[in-house]
C-alpha cells in the first residue's frame, strides 16, 4: 500500500523533494492535520446531515477501550511486545467504535431510552471501563492525559518509515566478497590461557562484517556502490493518507447512494439500496478514521475535525457536493493556519506573543509571554474561527445578510402601508384629513421622522408626489399599488 502511494507521489515530485518536505515538522503537521480534516469532513458531512454529529464524539471516546483491551490481550495474553502502532490495535479500536454504535442502537431499540440518552449512557460507560482498565492493569501504558486529549501531531515527522525505490537489493557479504573485512584471530588463546605468539596457538579467519544488509544499511556502511533511493514517510501521514484514500473512494463511489440514504432513507430502502448496510459502513469508516486520527490529534478533538468544517460549509451552501468540497477545504485551511497559530501567528494579522505581553501588563502572567501551544487544539481553534466568520458573513444565512434582509423587508412593508393608505383615500372626501403631509404620521401612529424618511424614499422612487400639502400617488405609484393585489 505504501509503495503504491509513493509511486503515485513520485509522478509529481522527486524523491529528494518528498524527503525534504517530510522532514519538515511544519509541513508534516500541516499535512497530517489536513488529511484528518479532509477525511473527517467527507464523513462528517453525512453525519451532520443525519443529525448524528455527536456519534463521532462517542466513537472517539470509546476507541480508547478498544486500544486498551487489545493492548492487554497482546501483552498479557500473548506476551507480545507492546506496540502502539500495531494493526491489531487499530482493528480493536475500530471494533470498539462500531460496538458503541451498536450498543447505542440496541439501547434505543428497547424503546425505553431515547436516542440522545442512549448515546449519553453508552460512551461514558465504555470510557469509564477503559479508564479503570488502564489504571488497574496498564499503568505503564503510554495513555496519559496528553495522548487522550491533545495528540502528538507536532512530532509526527519524527516517526517515519522508509520506502525503498531503486537499488533496493539487499547485500550479502560472504568471506569471499571484496568488501569483507577478514581478520585472523586466535581461536584457543583465551580458553587455554596462552599467548597468541605461542606455537600451539590456532588461528582462524574471522569475517567481522559478514551477513545480510538491507540496501540502506549497506550504503550507510560503505559496503555497496549503488545509492538506494529511499523515501521517508511519517507513519501518521501514511496511515492518514491511506484512510483518506479509502474515504474518498467510499464517498466517490457511493455518492448517489449516500445522498439518497441521507435525505430519504425510506425511498432508498424502497429502491433496494440497503441504507442500513450503508449506515454501518459509514460508522465503520468513522471509527477507522477516528482511530487513525487518535495519535495525531487526540480523542476529544477528533470530533471537531468531523463537525466544524461541514457546519461551516453548511452555512455557505445548500448543495451536498459543494458542502463536501467546502468542508474539506475549510478543514485543510484550518490545519494550515492552525500550525501558525500554535507558533503565535494568527492569520498573519496578530502576533500572539504580543497579546500575551499586553495581557501580562493587564492581569499579570508572571512575565511568561511565550506563545507555544498545542498544535492540534490550534487547528481546531482556526476551524472554529472560520465557522464564526461564515456565521457572520455568509451571503445568505449569515448574521449580516439576515440583518440586511430583515431591514429591507421592514422598509418594503413600510412603503406598502403608506402607498396603500394613499390609494385608499385619494379622491375621497376625507383626503384633506387623511393625506395631509403634516399630520399623515398620526394615522399610522408613527413618529414624524419615520414617515418623513418613508415619504422622502417614495418621492425619490417617483411613487408619490406632494400637491397642495397632500400626498398623492404618481402614475408609477398607482401601478405599484395595482401590482400589490
Amino acid at each position: 500500500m505504501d509503495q503504491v502511494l509513493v509511486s503515485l507521489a513520485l509522478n509529481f515530485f522527486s524523491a529528494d523533494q518528498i524527503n525534504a518536505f517530510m522532514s519538515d515538522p511544519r509541513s508534516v503537521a500541516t499535512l497530517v492535520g489536513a488529511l484528518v480534516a479532509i477525511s473527517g469532513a467527507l464523513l462528517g458531512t453525512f453525519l451532520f446531515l443525519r443529525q448524528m454529529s455527536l456519534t463521532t464524539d462517542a466513537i472517539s471516546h470509546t476507541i480508547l477501550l478498544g486500544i486498551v483491551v487489545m493492548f492487554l490481550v497482546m501483552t498479557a495474553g500473548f506476551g507480545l511486545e507492546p506496540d502502539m502502532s500495531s494493526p491489531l490495535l487499530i482493528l480493536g479500536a475500530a471494533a470498539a467504535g462500531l460496538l458503541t454504535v451498536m450498543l447505542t442502537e440496541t439501547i434505543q431499540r428497547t424503546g425505553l431510552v431515547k436516542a440522545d440518552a442512549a448515546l449519553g449512557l453508552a460512551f461514558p460507560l465504555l470510557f469509564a471501563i477503559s479508564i479503570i482498565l488502564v489504571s488497574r492493569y496498564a499503568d505503564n501504558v503510554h495513555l496519559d492525559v496528553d495522548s487522550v486529549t491533545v495528540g502528538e501531531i507536532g512530532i509526527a515527522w519524527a516517526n517515519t518509515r522508509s520506502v525503498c525505490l531503486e537499488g533496493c537489493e539487499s547485500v550479502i557479504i560472504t568471506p569471499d566478497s571484496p568488501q569483507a573485512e577478514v581478520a585472523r584471530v586466535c581461536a584457543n588463546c583465551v580458553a587455554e590461557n596462552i599467548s597468541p605468539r605461542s606455537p600451539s596457538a590456532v588461528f582462524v579467519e574471522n569475517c567481522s562484517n559478514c551477513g545480510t544488509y538491507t540496501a540502506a544499511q549497506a550504503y550507510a556502511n560503505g559496503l555497496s556502490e549503488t545509492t538506494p533511493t529511499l523515501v521517508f514517510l511519517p507513519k501518521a501521514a501514511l496511515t492518514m493518507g491511506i484512510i483518506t484514500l479509502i474515504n474518498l473512494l467510499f464517498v466517490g463511489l457511493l455518492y448517489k447512494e449516500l445522498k439518497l440514504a441521507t435525505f430519504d432513507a425510506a425511498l432508498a430502502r424502497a429502491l433496494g439500496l440497503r441504507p442500513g448496510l450503508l449506515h454501518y459502513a459509514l460508522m465503520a469508516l468513522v471509527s477507522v478514521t477516528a482511530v487513525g486520527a487518535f495519535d495525531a490529534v487526540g480523542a476529544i478533538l477528533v470530533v471537531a475535525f468531523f463537525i466544524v468544517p461541514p457546519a461551516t460549509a453548511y452555512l455557505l451552501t445548500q448543495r451536498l457536493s459543494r458542502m463536501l468540497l467546502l468542508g474539506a477545504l475549510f478543514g485543510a485551511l484550518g490545519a494550515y493556519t492552525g500550525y501558525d497559530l500554535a507558533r503565535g501567528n494568527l492569520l498573519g494579522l496578530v502576533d500572539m506573543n504580543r497579546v500575551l505581553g499586553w495581557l501580562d501588563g493587564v492581569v499579570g502572567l508572571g512575565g511568561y509571554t511565550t506563545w507555544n501551544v498545542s498544535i492540534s487544539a490550534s487547528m481546531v481553534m482556526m476551524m472554529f474561527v472560520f465557522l464564526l466568520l461564515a456565521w457572520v458573513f455568509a451571503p445568505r444565512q449569515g448574521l449580516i445578510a439576515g440583518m440586511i434582509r430583515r431591514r429591507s423587508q421592514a422598509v418594503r412593508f413600510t412603503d406598502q402601508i403608506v402607498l396603500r393608505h394613499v390609494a385608499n383615500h385619494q379622491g375621497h372626501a376625507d383626503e384633506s384629513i387623511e393625506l395631509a403631509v403634516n399630520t399623515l404620521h398620526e394615522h399610522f401612529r408613527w413618529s414624524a421622522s419615520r414617515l418623513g424618511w418613508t415619504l422622502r424614499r417614495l418621492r425619490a422612487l417617483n411613487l408619490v408626489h406632494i400637491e397642495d400639502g397632500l400626498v398623492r400617488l404618481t402614475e408609477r405609484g398607482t401601478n405599484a399599488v395595482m401590482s400589490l393585489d
Partner: protein
Amino acid sequence: MAILRGRFNSERAAWGAGLGAVLAFILILTVAGASGVTFDHTLRTVTMGGALLGLVTGVLGSFAVLRRQSLLGDALSHAALPGVVIAFIVQGRALSALLIGAAIASLTAMAFISALTRTTKIKQDAAQGITLAAWFAFGLILLSYVQGRPDAGQAGLDKFIFGQAAALVQSDVLLIVGVGALVCLIVALFWKEFKLLTFDPEFAAANGFPVRFLDSLLSSLIVAAIVLGLQLAGVILMVGLLIAPAVAARQWTQSLGVMVLLSGAFGAFAGSTGAVLSGVDVNMPTGPLMIVAACAVVLVSVLFAPGRGIVWTVMSRRRERQAVGRPSLGGVQPVMVKRSADDGQ
C-alpha cells in the same frame, strides 16, 4: 394489557427501587468492609461528596433526559475547561475561583449553543458538538501555555479532565452541600414551571411563562451540578453521572415528582458506591467507578422495572398469549360472520 399494567402500583414500585438501592449500598458496604477496606477520613469524605453530588446530578438529570437534552451536559462539562485554566492564570489555585471560572465558561458555551441554533439552520446536536470542541480546544491551548510556564504550580490542573476524587477535602463537601441545597430549593420553587417547560414548552410560552428565562435557569442549574462534579468525575465522565440515574428512575414511574426523587436516590447510590469501591484498591479511579455503578442501576432498571422493564414486557406478552391461546395470530380472535339470505338485497 391495561389490566396487566394496572396490577402494579407505580409509586410502590418506585419505593421498592429506592429501598433496593439502599439495601444494595449496605450490602456493598459490608462486602467492602469484609474485604479489608478501611473507612478512613479521606474515603469517608469522598463517599459523602460522591453521594451528595450524585443526588444533585440525579435530580437535574431527570429534566435533561426528559427534555432530550442529555448531551447538553456533555458539551457544557467539556466547555468548562478554558474557564478553569483562565481562573488559574488570573487567580492561582484557589478552588472557588476555578469553579467560578468553570461556571462562566460553561454559561458562555450555553449561550453560544442557543444563539447558533436560533440564528442558523444548524441543529442542536451539531451546535453542541461545535461548542464542545471549540471551547475544549481553547482550554487545551491555554493549558499548554500554562504547562509551558517555568513555575511548577500548574501541576494537577489537568486533573480536571479526568477528575481526582482523592483530592476532595471537607470544605469541598460543604461546598457541594451548599450549592446542592440551593439547586434543590430552586427546583422546588420553580417546580410547576419546570414541569410545564419539560412536557409542553409551547403551552408554557402561550400561557405567558418566560420560557427562555426558565430554559436558561434550568441549564444554569445543570452547569452548577457539572462544575461541582468536575473535581470528582472530570469533564469527560460528568455526563454519565447526569444521565444514568435519570434514565434508571424513568423506568420505575410515570410521575415526574417520583422520578426526580428516585433519580436523586440512584445518583446518591452510584456516587457513594463508586467511592466505596475505589477504596478496594489504590489503583481504582473513583469517577469511572461511579459511572459503572450508575450504569449497573440502569441495567437492573431496564431489565426488571415493573410495567416497562424488558423482563416484565416479555412475561406479560407470554401471559397474554396463553390467555388468548392462539399465539400465531398475535392475540387477534378470528370472528365468524354469518350471512343471512336477505343481506345485500
